[in-house]
């Protein structure tokens, strides 16, 4: 392709098709642009939240670690009791989906199922209060971490979605639209060219007919035959020997 256009036959029908496609491309571009904008707005909100939450996570985790140290001091070595009493998870997460401009974003929420299980009994002998406080501190951390995970997932999903949408927007704007426009102008040019050729041809036909008529008139005059002798005027269109002109 010498020019950036589609290879088409330059006809009026194809021109109409190309025009329809251009309208579609422009509309699609506008819509995708809006989608990209909506996603970016959401993305920026999330970015801010992620940074804030990550920072507060550091603090919460520190508190949890301190609570654990306190519990250890009060209750002695209880980690083996903890490891042994693991059965089924009481803290779980449910995934829901959030919809932003047609992009599905998973969202986590933590849920507590069942009672405290065996964990509630840890440290019953001594240091129970500290152990329970430690438990609470870590529950708080889990809450925060689930929030953070949901933000992070949204971040990754949105990032991907924005990238693809922008790619499409740019493709429409920089590839499809110019190509369609080029094709349309090409077809219009070709059609104009055909029109001019046709006009020129007609003009030629007319000129030749005039010339032929003049020659015939001159011939008749030369023979000395009056035009009125035949009883009919010298009508060029009536002459049977005037055959079609073939170029």
């Amino acid at each position: 392709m010498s020019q950036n256009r589609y290879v088409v036959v330059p006809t009026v029908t194809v021109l109409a098709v190309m025009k329809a496609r251009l309208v579609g491309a422009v509309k699609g571009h506008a819509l995708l642009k809006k989608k990209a904008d909506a996603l970016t707005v959401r993305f920026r909100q999330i970015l801010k939240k992620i940074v804030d939450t990550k920072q507060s996570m550091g603090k919460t985790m520190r508190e949890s670690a301190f609570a654990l140290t306190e519990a250890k001091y009060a209750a002695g070595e209880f980690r083996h009791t903890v490891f042994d009493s693991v059965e089924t998870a009481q803290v779980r997460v449910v995934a829901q989906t959030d919809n932003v401009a047609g992009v599905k974003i998973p969202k986590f929420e933590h849920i507590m199922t069942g009672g405290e299980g065996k964990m509630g009994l840890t440290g019953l002998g001594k240091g129970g209060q500290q152990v329970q406080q430690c438990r609470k501190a870590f529950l708080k951390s889990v809450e925060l971490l689930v929030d953070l995970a949901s933000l992070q997932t949204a971040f990754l999903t949105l990032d991907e979605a924005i990238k693809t949408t922008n790619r499409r927007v740019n493709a429409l704007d920089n590839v499809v639209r110019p190509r369609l426009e080029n094709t349309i102008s090409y077809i219009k040019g070709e059609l104009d060219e055909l029109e001019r050729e046709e006009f020129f041809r007609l003009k030629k036909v007319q000129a030749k007919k005039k010339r032929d008529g003049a020659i015939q008139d001159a011939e008749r005059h030369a023979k000395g035959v009056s035009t009125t002798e035949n009883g009919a005027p010298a009508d060029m269109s009536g002459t049977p020997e005037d055959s079609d002109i073939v170029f």
Partner: protein
Amino acid sequence: MAAVKSGAPAEGSLLAIIGDEDTVTGFLLAGVGNVDLRKKTNFLIVNEKTAVKKIEDTFKEYTNRDDIAIVLINQFIADMIRHLIANYAKPVPAILEIPSKEHPYDPSKDSILTRVKIMFGGD
């Protein structure tokens, strides 16, 4: 998402933990831990004797299990398998790097946070 777990009310997904002893103890105390019938756990305790290979395998296993929605990993352990985490692109399960008791949180190492920083315009 919710894989059917034996016996337990199969509702919601699990959190998985790869961490040092203290971190894991804390989260287990909070009730995150889960052991299924085949004695498969959703947590790995990493100490100085744990091989990096073992951490890598566990990480791969957790990220491919469909009953796990979030993987918590201590940042210093994440550093050991940084190549895996950097190449990890799936949104679910989400990988969260958390600080541990001995290792304070370093935002500049976090894979996600570095990307966030780039988005913000590298300040």
